[in-house]
């Protein structure tokens, strides 16, 4: 559908919003949304509770086509849905299976693969991880070194992936591997599905600057992978890899996250005092908030324009890169202003505060604890999903004819 020059939600949209909201009210456990609100560490089960509820309702695969068990929602409905789940402080939908691998399988998988994997993604039976990056292959992903050697009925995989988000929870990992060792970068890459419990797969934690365990190294030593686990054609994995990345990017813009952070910022700026008066009355600080809100207002429309175009069948292309850049900068700006709004209250850091069930008195107001940590954690969003610099290269190359 196309957005007409009409920026109002229709009655139908509003009804849909209410349906989503009511459903969340009913099914999302309070204890879980409390944990999300407090930025407490989520267990694997926490993610699964919410995702299983979505499965039961038929809403998990909200961007898949209907015939595969998707919702068939239009762009506006998707936007409303995303906004409501974030407003309700639901855990995030772990994207690797449903948002990343799913679309690739639907487009390029065999019937057998679709029949086997898609239902397992829909039922959350499989937890997927993304095995793209390697120590030597970050921005230059095509220079990856993990090899898969053809041994007749199986591939023998050796190498190392890194930065694997939530890989410690995963049952399966989709990997880019080199199947033609002599081919130039970008050629000779294949897209392979690997069971994490195959002998020779080892997961090692990486602790990030905020002291948390979110990413991992995944090592492969003589790992046997059945040949039927290859997606699409051998040596053509780069095409599928790029197709997947465009889906990854739009999500990272995170407009609804920024909107919810903006509300949080306004709330905190009303409570924080500067010279005995609410900080929000400070003309300079409130101007900064206003400019952030203006950026966000425009970006929401930008985002809707892009997803609408995508819904019309145009693959999200250059716009998804632009949105990724602007979206991450705006989101990072919200975390920066939140940190500034707190003043010295941003300093105390109680790691135990992020454990489930922690109910001691915080140091300072209860909202202060996670803010600085979140600011540092969010530095990642301009690095991953294709760094912002790489997005700029893509846009410049694709659109300027220079």
């Amino acid at each position, binding site marked *: 559908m196309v957005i007409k020059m009409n920026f109002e939600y229709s009655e139908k949209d509003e009804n849909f919003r209410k349906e989503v909201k009511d459903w969340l009210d009913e099914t999302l456990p309070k204890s879980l949304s409390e944990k999300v609100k407090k930025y407490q560490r989520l267990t694997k089960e926490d993610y699964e509770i919410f995702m299983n509820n979505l499965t039961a309702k038929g809403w998990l695969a909200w961007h898949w086509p209907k015939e595969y068990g998707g919702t068939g929602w239009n762009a506006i409905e998707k936007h409303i849905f995303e906004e409501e789940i974030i407003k309700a402080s639901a855990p995030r939908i772990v994207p690797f299976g449903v948002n990343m691998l799913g679309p690739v399988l639907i487009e390029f998988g065999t019937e057998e693969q679709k029949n086997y994997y898609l239902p397992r993604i829909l039922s959350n039976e499989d937890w997927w991880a993304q095995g793209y990056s390697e120590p030597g292959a970050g921005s230059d992903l095509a220079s990856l070194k993990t090899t898969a050697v053809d041994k007749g009925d199986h591939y023998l995989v050796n190498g190392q992936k890194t930065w694997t988000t939530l890989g410690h929870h995963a049952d399966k990992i989709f990997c880019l591997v080199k199947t033609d060792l002599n081919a130039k970068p970008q050629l000779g890459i294949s897209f392979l599905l690997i069971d994490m419990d195959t002998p020779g797969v080892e997961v090692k934690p990486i*602790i990030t600057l905020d002291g948390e365990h979110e990413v991992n190294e995944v090592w492969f030593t003589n790992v046997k992978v059945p040949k039927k686990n290859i997606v699409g054609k051998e040596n053509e994995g780069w095409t599928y890899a790029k197709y997947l990345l465009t889906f990854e990017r739009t999500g990272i813009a995170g407009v609804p996250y920024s909107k919810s952070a903006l509300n949080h910022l306004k709330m905190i700026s009303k409570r924080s005092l500067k010279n005995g008066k609410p900080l929000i009355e400070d003309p300079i600080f409130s101007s900064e908030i206003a400019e952030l809100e203006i950026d966000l207002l425009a970006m929401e429309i930008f985002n809707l324009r892009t997803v609408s175009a995508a819904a019309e069948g145009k693959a999200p292309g250059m716009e998804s890169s632009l949105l990724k850049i602007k979206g991450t900068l705006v989101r990072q700006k919200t975390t920066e202003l939140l940190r500034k709004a707190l003043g*010295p209250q941003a300093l105390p850091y109680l790691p135990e505060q992020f454990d489930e069930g922690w109910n001691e008195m915080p*140091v300072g107001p209860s909202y202060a604890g996670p803010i600085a940590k979140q*600011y*540092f954690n969010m530095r990642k969003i301009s*690095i991953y999903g294709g760094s912002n*610099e790489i997005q700029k290269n893509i846009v410049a190359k694709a659109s300027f004819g220079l």
Partner: protein
Amino acid sequence: MDFTLSEERKMLQETVGKFFNSNYKNIDKRSENVNLPEGYSKEFWKESSDLGVISALVSPKFGGLGGSGEDISIIFELVGKSLCVEPFLSSAVLSSTVLSSISNPRNDLITDIIEGNLLISFAHCEMNNRYEDHYIETNAYLKNDEWNINGTKSFVMNGDDASKIIVSARINGDVNDRHGIGLFLVDNDQTLKRPYNTIDGYRSTELTFEDLKGELLAKDENALKCIIKANSAGALALSAEALGIMQICFDLTLDYLKTRKQFGKSIGAFQSIQHRMVDMMLEIEQVKSAVMLASSTFETDDLTRDKNISAAKNLVGRVGKLIAEETIQLHGGIAMTWEYSAAHYAKRLIMIDHLMGDSDYHRDRFKLLSNS
């Protein structure tokens, strides 16, 4: 005008630099110090005293061997380069500044600080006073010739391990009045303490006083003057610390850009990256210049001192954010890890803007002072 360091100061810089490096060899060693019960190494603190590092922060008038703006900057630039967590700021700068600025300076206590035998923390911040010099809720009243203090002080650096505390408290007037403030010396064994680490690895404490007996050090105009001077000295020290951190961030990033290869060349070969390094470089030169100016006018009149310190601290806040964020971004994923030192430098650099006045506070103060 002379922009070079004297021979003596160069020697100080070299000796202290070597000494800091020998203890703070790497980020794991620092983490060890952070994780000690007091949140810092007592042994290193004592050695620093023996080497004269603390005395370099105090003027000869009060038993030290330094104490000028330049001395403070030299030492704190090195504190930044090593990310030292010892109580240089709390005890050696803030408290000794108060103790030397009161009408009857307390050389006895200052000498104990210099010798590493006594730790005194300065408890001025409160949960709601943000960065203000005079907004004070903690109160003090006189009963039977004794001062009694009630209230809670926040973010007191090294407030758990210090044996004495200098407390700012309101004797009369409204919470926001510029007069009616007192400074008191109290024993720390009777206070209620809640220690914690800050996100950048420094020990801080919430201290609560209930009818705690205190000795009056200064009151009214003199007290406020002392608080302002201590906070300004602290802001100068932190600015120099930030400068040291920025230089390390820059060096680490440049090294990495030379060694990290993507697309068949070092990522530093991309011009868009080079331009960003140039931006960082010139902003660091700006900070260096502002810190030099603020150091050189530290002993002049209060107005010039505070105006130049506010200029430096404002710039440090703005440039610090740039350097910390660019350091992480230009490294990519590696700088998001605990294991790599750049992450810790970036965290400290950002959090320095949450101590002794952020960039907004100092911009506002600069505006006031430069128009007065």
